[in-house]
């Protein structure tokens, strides 16, 4: 299929260098004599959003977009984004995935249970489903060759054997796009990625990476708030109302403080600790 051309999807989060990596692949294809189209969605990615770049090459390319189920490779710079991009893979095509996890604040919202919604680093299960998974800790490999920022070059090295482009074309466009003074480090990172063998080396890396915290699981213990109304000064004070991180408390026309969002209380005890009149008690199980 790669004789007539191919489709690659690159994904990651803002600041990881998805757009640069994609420009390097496009330029490599161009140097190798192919027609190329590339489309990325950036818009709001500067502020922590997803960045994805579709890349297609062939004798004559019409659409710049990779259709679902049609990617000849997906390159993911971040674990969760790699999982999200899975539907794009053509059956049997490789998922090249960095083991780095960028946990968005939105995944740490259930403060009561402390349970994170971020997906666990379950590499074996992923390999069972996808087949060809080429996972590595690209950040670690990049650090080993001396430039932590070259993680995208590592992943391009992993991609290279799958693509029908000569190595000279890769190295030339890599050098062309490397920021000043980093082209040697980028080349080393690329070669290190290219030399990785699957799955033995990468599974060992995944096991190591899985040790660091993520897939956070928690414990739910709903607390109970008790207001001793006689001791509360009401509107004159409002310290607890301002202190509660969950906006559980209010003094709206009432003489004493009221619990308006009991279900949101996490039992942090700030109200209890800060009340000058000992008018609130937090009971935890």
């Amino acid at each position, binding site marked *: 299929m790669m004789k007539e051309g191919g489709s690659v999807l690159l994904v990651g989060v803002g600041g990881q260098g998805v757009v640069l990596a994609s420009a390097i692949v496009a330029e490599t294809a161009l140097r190798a004599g192919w027609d190329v189209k590339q489309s990325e969605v950036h818009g709001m990615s500067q502020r922590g959003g997803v960045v994805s770049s579709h890349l297609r090459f062939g004798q004559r390319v019409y659409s710049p977009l990779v259709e679902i189920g049609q990617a000849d490779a997906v390159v993911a710079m971040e674990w969760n984004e790699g999982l999200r991009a899975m539907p794009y893979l053509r059956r049997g095509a490789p998922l090249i995935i960095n083991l780095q996890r960028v946990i968005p604040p939105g995944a740490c919202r259930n403060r009561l249970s402390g349970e994170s919604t971020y997906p666990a680093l379950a590499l074996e299960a992923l390999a069972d489903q996808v087949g060809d998974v080429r996972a590595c800790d690209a950040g670690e490999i990049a650090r080993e060759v001396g430039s932590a920022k070259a993680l995208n070059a590592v992943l391009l090295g992993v991609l290279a054997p799958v693509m029908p482009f000569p190595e000279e074309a890769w190295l030339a466009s890599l050098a062309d796009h490397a920021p000043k003074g980093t082209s040697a480090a980028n080349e080393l990172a690329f070669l290190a990625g290219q030399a990785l063998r699957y799955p033995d080396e990468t599974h060992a890396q995944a096991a190591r990476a899985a040790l660091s915290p993520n897939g*956070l699981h928690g414990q739910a213990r709903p607390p109970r708030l008790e207001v001793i109304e006689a001791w509360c000064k009401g509107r004159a004070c409002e310290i607890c109302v301002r202190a509660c991180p969950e906006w559980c408390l209010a003094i709206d026309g009432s003489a004493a403080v009221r619990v308006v969002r009991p279900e949101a209380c996490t039992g942090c005890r700030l109200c209890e600790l800060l009340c000058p009149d000992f008018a609130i008690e937090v009971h935890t199980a």
Partner: protein
Amino acid sequence: MTAPGASSEVRASPGAVTPRPLLLSGNEAIARGAREAGVRVAAGYPGTPSTEILETLVRLDPGRQVYVEWSTNEKVGLDVALGAAIGGARALCAMKHVGLNVAADTFMTSAYTGVRAGLVVVSADDPGMHSSQNEQDNRVLVRFAGVPLLEPADSQEARDFTVHAFDLSERFDVPVVLRTTTRVSHARGIVAPGPLRVAPGLGFQRNPAKLVMLPGFARSRHRVMLERLEALEREAETSPLNRIEWGDRALGVVTSSIVYHYVRELVPGASVLRLGFSHPLPRALAREFAAGVERLIVVEELEPFLEEQLRALGLAVEGKAYFPRDGELGPEAIRRGFVRAGVIAEAGEKPLVSPPTVTRPPVLCPGCPHVAPYLALRQIGAVVSGDIGCYTLAAIEPLAAMDTTVAMGSSIGMAIGLARSGGATGPVVATIGDSTFLHAGLPALADAAYHRTRMTVLILDNGTTAMTGGQAHPAAGVTIRGDAAPTIDLPAVCRALGVEFVRVVDPYDLAQTQLALEQAAAFPGLSVIITNRPCVEAPVKVRDQPYTVLAEQCIACQYCMNLGCPSITWSAEWHEGRRKVQIDPVTCTGCTVCAQTCPTEAMVGLPGWSKPR
């Protein structure tokens, strides 16, 4: 000019050595085309997906032969460009789709006056709303105005059509709209460039009957416009931008813009009428095509713009019955439509299904100066009339401190209405960025001051137009070329408008900010508060000593997480069944705001840090 559709000419052969053509985005190609057509004046207001057009023009013009400006808003931008064209200089005005609403007053009547030198208006539409407040289809506005519409489908065409548009504009004495979509503006493709040049000026010519739109003059100009439309339709009939690609006669597809490319890949055998010059519609060409095929299907993004016009010709045409009228029309949706129409079979293999994952909505940056003011607004229970900019992200959890956002500059006028409605449940506060304030907030502030409306306006002055990537504006002290410019004294402007309560606060000082907002809300009239910290991302990256959490001191109240700072996440440690927090020292900018929320002073500057040079 290169023949339209020339992308097929730059056919590359794998393996062979080819001369290095340029790999350009659609926006870069438009700038390129404008320079090749000899543009002399370019204006516009930033807005995704159009912003890179003017930025590229500056890059392509180190010799400063073109006057380029970021205008105060799109209306001013179009006025500048129209004035330049009437003065005999080829001019370009670039904006996002909603920008054309702002410029519509000038736009509609410019179709009456005409232009003299070529005037190209670029409208970059955003089907799917990748970064917009609506997904209006500006083909409708263009038809309403009665001006010609060109729709490039890729970068090569973006360059070619721009060159063509200037020529067309001059020949027919009419502004020409070049409409892109996000996919055309931001997709990259190979472009065969031509030489850059500056067109000779044609000079100004006095002609009040043509240029002063008094009713008496305008009546005759309206007739000129209608006759011109007929001539333009004749031009469209034979324009190389419109073409029939005959294939299998069983199915004929009418399409335009980038959708053409998806259609070519999904139904490669079909006959296609491809409209690059899509308004006025070449009716004879459409009839010829319809007569040559057994079944006629229109595939177009958003409105049934072509479909309804073809139906009005009495043609049996299908379209929106199969293809959605909302959202981006990508390859998947077009495949589904063709399957529904019975044209192609369902794709064989089911795609892989992801395990449960998390979404990643955009968030305010670590250290963003917009954060603390919104935490304070939530604390005082304000009804917040929001506006458009980075700060709109304060509407989502955990800040969740914005109640309305509609259009650029609407915050202040809507706050007046909210205050006058008698229905507000708390103090009414309009929040507006500096760029947006100058864009369309000033007239509304004058209105609030004029009528002594009791409300507060919070101007979030971060010194830049951050949402679109950090462009300069009239109060930024710098131009699009990086030259020093006069600034605007915003507090003085507010006072001059008659606002009695004007205060400047440091948004990194949470207590000061909240106190000021409380006092402003208590003020029996119009009050204005202006924040004064720069955006941490543009024009310069602001990086100070990062903060860190003393884990033994953290009581896991997670108050700091109410800021939504992406540098703060849960750590692996627990306290009384709750997660302690940690700060990522790489992304933290050291704004100190989280430390101000911490009840146990567990957040401190990272020891041993020194400012990198």
